[in-house]
């Protein structure tokens, strides 16, 4: 992977994002790795098909990750689970919207999608996951 990628390797990820549960931390990191792949591909010409594949992978991975998190919340009787599930659904819906726009030829939207995904994931991890769900003091 290109070391100049701005999202995961150089800037975004830090120990602040660790929830302390390996499976969740690794899944979170994988999101940023996929964003890095999109950054790299977006800087190259004629990579539309590869970009769509990564967005598909990102979508599928989000569904997988959210079900892991929701399983954890269920198991621990997390009180705010419905709101959290709803946030997951909204994110999935928004990514699907970006993907469809991209497929329909609006390639400029990719930057917006990456920015949205980065902010959403970081806020979600730092605000919801680290603070609330996986805060051992609250479980």
């Amino acid at each position, binding site marked *: 992977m290109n070391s100049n990628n701005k999202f995961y390797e150089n800037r*975004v990820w*830090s120990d602040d994002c660790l929830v302390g549960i390996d499976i969740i931390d690794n899944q979170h990191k994988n999101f940023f790795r996929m964003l890095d792949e999109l950054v790299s591909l977006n800087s190259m010409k004629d990579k539309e098909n590869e970009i769509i594949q990564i967005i598909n992978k990102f979508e599928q991975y989000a569904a997988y990750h959210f079900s892991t998190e929701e399983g954890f919340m269920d198991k621990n009787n997390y009180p705010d689970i419905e709101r959290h599930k709803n946030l997951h659904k909204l994110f999935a819906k928004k990514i699907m919207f970006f993907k469809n726009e991209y497929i329909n030829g609006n390639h400029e939207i990719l930057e917006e999608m990456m920015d949205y995904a980065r902010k959403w994931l970081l806020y979600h991890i*730092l605000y919801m996951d680290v603070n609330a769900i996986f805060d051992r003091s609250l479980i």
Partner: protein
Amino acid sequence: MEKKILIISRDIFFHKLLKKLMEKNIKNCELFIYKSKREIDRISQDSKIDFVVLDGEFNSLSAFEVLRILRVEKRIIAPIWFFSDIDRKDYIYKAYAIGASKIIKKTFDPIEIVNDIANILNK
């Protein structure tokens, strides 16, 4: 000299998040957290404040009313960053008109925001 930062929000996770990141990333900062109208009333007029983070509404006060109190009654001249879920244009214009220095739409990148605040305070 320590920078005095007010975090005004009734959301415990919002405080926790910003407090943790600010203590780590902003040198010499002193944080004051206000979670209710009663606590906001205790902010002393004309006290030296360097930065205000204002998040959303309180039970008995709208976010605009809190903003007005800070600017008019407490005479705070420091930057006030206004965090909101709402991004309607009329809402944003109103927040600027009452005295917000910047509007931050949730969801945001918390690390980026805290770094931006650090840059302002270090100028």
